[in-house]
Structures are given as structure tokens and as C-alpha cells.
């Protein structure tokens, strides 16, 4: 890997009062790859990607985008650099509709006078687009596209969030447990979607607890343990069993991997 990482971090630290979430953590994402991040509950995976996407400001450490140090003041700054994220908490406005949530911050305006001067939204176009994206993910149980997000089932909600990121990401897409609440069919569609996106040349960070999924799609696996990167492994040269053993602390990784 002599390539330059597209997104990298060195020595990130994040503490909440007495709780340490990130403990001098490193991170590298290379162009065009699917990088899986695995680790125990509470290992600090979500904290890591929140730091990378500007949702939290780390106490120490450095983030580099295309080799240049950056600091993201807020998620909008990260998004302007093309980093699109599905957070574990999904970041939806519960009282607003599916369409409103999908297009939040990127609404489509009518063409012509109404759109230009009265800034009227093109509800029909947005609804059509949203319905298509949901169908692509196999969410056929959504009966009413104008439903408030708070009334959706857990899986439907997650589907909407994933559809949003997939539709709009341009440089890096980060997915924090995108299939946790999804059914068998819907999870499969998301995995297909991830591979689709990769084919478009956009690198993806995938956090997941589902080992078969991880080993199916990942190019490299970042194993996170106790707030830091324990090692990076190649799914083709290691067994699931070893990966699980590293991440739960059952086994120490060989020292050459730890440096990767």
C-alpha cells in the first residue's frame, strides 16, 4: 500500500468526563476500497467515525484528507468535503416525513418562476425519487411515503438513512452499522448497494457486527479494541475466527499486523 490514504487519522483522543472513548487511535482509508471496522460494543467505533465526520471534536490528534491536515468544525464542513455519513443514531427528524428527511439540506426546487423566485419545492419530484430509492433497497412495506419518520418501523427508518447517504455521497461514504435493524432481504440489498458504490470508485467505511457480511464485502478490516486500532487484517488471508479472537481480546494479533 504505497498509495496515499484518502482519509487518515493519527493519535485521536476523545474523553467524556471519566470515560475514555478514543485512546490515541489511528485510521487509514485508501481510495476505492471497502474498509470494515469491527470491535466490541463500546470499543469506540462510532466515536472514531464521529470524529472523522466532524460530529465531535477530538481532544487531541490529527485528521488528514488527501494528505492535508483538516479540522471539521461541524458535519456540514465534512459534507462539503464530500464525506457522507450514516450515523448509528440515524440523525433523522422524527416529526418530518420520509421525503423531507431524505432531502434535508438538499431539497429540489421547482423549475421556472415558482422555484426561482418563490423558492417552491418540487414535492412530486422528491417523492418519486424517494420511492425509487426505497424500492431499490427492497423496503416494499412502506405504504405511505409522506409518513413521519417517527412512525416507521426500526428497519424502515434505517433503510431511509442508508438510502439518503447512498444517493448523495461523493467522496467517502461512512456507514455505522447500516444493516443492524434490517431484515435478510433488505440487508442483502444494502450489501449490493455498497458494492455498487465501490464500483463507482467511492471508498466506503463499514462498521458492522455481522462477520459474514464483513468478510464478504471488505477489502481490509480495521480491528478496534479499547479505543484504538489494534490491527488491520486482510479478510482473504485470515479466518473469521481469528478476527473475532483479536477483537474480543481472546488472542493477541501477531506483531507485524499490529503495525499495519
Amino acid at each position, binding site marked *: 500500500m504505497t498509495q496515499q490514504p484518502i482519509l487518515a487519522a493519527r493519535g485521536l483522543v476523545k474523553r467524556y468526563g471519566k470515560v475514555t472513548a478514543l485512546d490515541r487511535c489511528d485510521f487509514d482509508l485508501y481510495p476505492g476500497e471497502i474498509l470494515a471496522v469491527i470491535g466490541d460494543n463500546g470499543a469506540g467505533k462510532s466515536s472514531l467515525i464521529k470524529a472523522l465526520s466532524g*460530529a465531535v471534536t477530538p481532544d487531541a490528534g490529527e485528521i488528514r484528507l488527501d494528505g492535508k491536515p483538516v479540522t471539521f468544525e461541524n*458535519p456540514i464542513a465534512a459534507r462539503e468535503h464530500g464525506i457522507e455519513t450514516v*450515523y448509528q443514531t440515524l440523525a*433523522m427528524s422524527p416529526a*418530518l416525513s420520509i421525503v*423531507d428527511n431524505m432531502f*434535508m439540506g438538499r431539497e429540489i426546487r421547482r423549475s421556472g418562476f415558482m422555484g426561482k423566485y*418563490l423558492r417552491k419545492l418540487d414535492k412530486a419530484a422528491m417523492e418519486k425519487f424517494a420511492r425509487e430509492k426505497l424500492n431499490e433497497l427492497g423496503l416494499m412495506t412502506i405504504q405511505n411515503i409522506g409518513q413521519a419518520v417517527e412512525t416507521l418501523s426500526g428497519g424502515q427508518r434505517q433503510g431511509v438513512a442508508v438510502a439518503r447517504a447512498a444517493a448523495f455521497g461523493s467522496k467517502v461514504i461512512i456507514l455505522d452499522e447500516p444493516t443492524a435493524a434490517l431484515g435478510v432481504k433488505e440487508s442483502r440489498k444494502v450489501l*449490493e448497494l455498497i458494492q455498487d458504490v465501490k464500483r463507482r470508485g467511492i471508498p466506503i467505511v463499514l462498521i458492522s457486527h455481522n462477520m459474514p457480511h464483513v468478510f464478504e464485502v471488505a477489502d481490509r478490516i480495521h480491528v478496534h479494541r479499547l479505543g484504538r486500532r489494534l490491527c488491520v487484517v486482510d479478510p482473504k488471508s485470515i479466518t473469521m475466527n481469528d478476527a473475532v479472537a483479536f477483537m474480543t481480546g481472546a488472542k493477541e494479533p501477531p506483531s507485524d499486523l499490529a503495525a499495519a
Partner: protein
Amino acid sequence: MSETASKGQDYESSLSSASNRVAEFEDTRKGLIHRIQHALHVTPALVPLIVLLAAIVIFALTLGSRFFSPGTLTLILQQVQIVGILAAAQTLIILTAGIDLSVGAIAVFCSVIMGAFTFRYGIPPLFSIPAGLAVGTAIGAASGWLVSRVKLPPFIVTLGMWQIVLAANYLYSRNETIRSQDINEQAPLLGLMGERFQLGGAIITLGVVAMIVLVVVLGYCLRSTAWGRHVYAVGDDAEAAELAGVNRHRTIMSVYMLAGFICGIAGWVMIGRFGSVSPSASTGVVGNIQSITAVVIGGISLFGGRGSIYGAFFGALIVGVFELGLRMAGANAQWTYLLIGALIIGAVAVDQWIRKVTS
């Protein structure tokens, strides 16, 4: 899509033939009631409208044509015009999960500015009115900045602003009233919003027109523009909205500044309605509670993100109908005060009941 399915786990092989239709259910409920239920469900502002119409009908039946005449009904519009405009400003703030205790004080202060600029410094009203509106907007900007950047609770910010603006109002005006005779003679533009025209027995003032136009325009902006959606999103869950890409700071600033501007308009309307400019107008002290009451009766949640501005407008009218109706029925001042308290609770209870029955 099935090409990759074969890569999945063994039990997923049949997925390619999974059903591809959007779920549909036959709906066995039919008829008018169901249609009404649906309408109420989709347009929640209809509920306060029903309460409003019911109140009008009840007073019309009790008081007869004295109450149910074009003159009296439009008198109600005139009496609520200021509260109605303030409620529009309040709606914006409350939709972002804030609360604005300073609306009334800003309105009074703006009217004082318009008056003092015109009469003390001799600036023509064509400039002193925009100056008043600008001061309102600036006060809103200050509150918005404290809420958005310093992250203070809106209650505290606007409570402080209320006291500051009200005191500044008394200090700046030196407690002097500008009389309507002087305004009529020297600066009729200041009193423009009091201009009235008659349609049959109905009397409409420009201030009433301003209120209605304002509500309709804001209703459009909140429903049909991206800005409106952002206002709702910020009020619903500010953190989620920010993560989803809404510029929270810009949205909050725009809302507070717009609210301040609307309060300035309310100040101008006040001059028209009362003829004179008076720093001790009660709106400065009770305008906040009155406008919040209208908003809450209109079904807008104090926790933000839910409700329609039309609801707030109907809420203001409901209170106006009760007040005038009770007075006309001859209740004495103390009893009227008591009954209005009871009726407000009753109106919202009916509202809640309609919602429950139709949900």
C-alpha cells in the same frame, strides 16, 4: 440484482424471487366520517378552526345578531390583529423549540422608535418606519446569536431581552406619549395601518390585512420552501438536523431576525390601531403570554417542530371571540377573566378530544 445474491449466505438464495410490490391493504372503512377523520389527520390546523367556528356559533346563538353581525365579527379581527401578528412571530420561534418572551416589548419599542424618529428628530416617516423595523430585526439578531452561538436557553435570552427592551423603551421615550392629533396632522404614514375600508357592515383595516397576508406568506414559506423544512427540522431535533446537513446557526438566526422584524410590523400596526404612540402599552408586558397562548391553543408544540401557523392564527381568534363574546354577554370584568381561563382550558380539551377521536 440477483447476480450478487449468489455470493450471500446459503439461506439467501431464494431472495431473487422475493415479492416486489409495495404493500397494500384493502381499507374496509368508508364514508363521510372516515373522510373527515382523514382530513383532520392530514391538516391538523383544522381542529382549532372547528373549535373557533363552534365558539362563534355558540355566541351567535346566545347573543343573536348583536354578536353575529359583520361589524362585530370584523371588530374581533381588529382586536386580535396585534396579538395575531405577534403570534406569527412567536410561532416561528416556538417551531425551533424556543420561546420568545420579548415579542410584545419589541413591538412597543419599535413603535416608539418610529414615533420618536419622526417627531423628535424630524425624520420623515418613510425612513423612520424602516428604521423601527430595522431595530426590531437587530434585537432579534442579538437574541438569535445568543441562542445559536452562545447556546443559551431561549427562555433566558428572551426574558433578559424583554426586560432590557422594555426598560430601554421607557428610558428612550422618556415616558412621553405622541398624541393621535399630532400623528394625523404631521405624519399620517405612521398611522397608515389604521386605515379602514368598509364592505357592507364589515370594517377592515390595513392592519388586519397585514396580519392575514403575513400568516398566508409564512404558511407558504414554512410548508413549501427548503427554509421552512429546516425550521421544522431544527425544532424537532437540532442535533439530528445538523448531522443531516442543516445549517442550524443560519436557520436560527433567520428565524429570530424574521421574528424581530415581524414584531416591528406589529409596532407599526399598533400605531395605526391606537392612533397614538405610547411606551406604556400593555402589549409590552402581556404580549408575550398572549401570543404564546394563541400558539399553544393553535396546537403548536412548545417542544418544537410540530404544528401549523394557521393553528396559531385560529388560536388568536378563539381568544378574541371568547373575550368579546363574554363582555357582550355582560359578564363583569373579574368574572370574564375567570371564565376566559376556563374557556381556554375547555377549548384545548375539545381540541384534544377531536384529535383523539379522529386518530
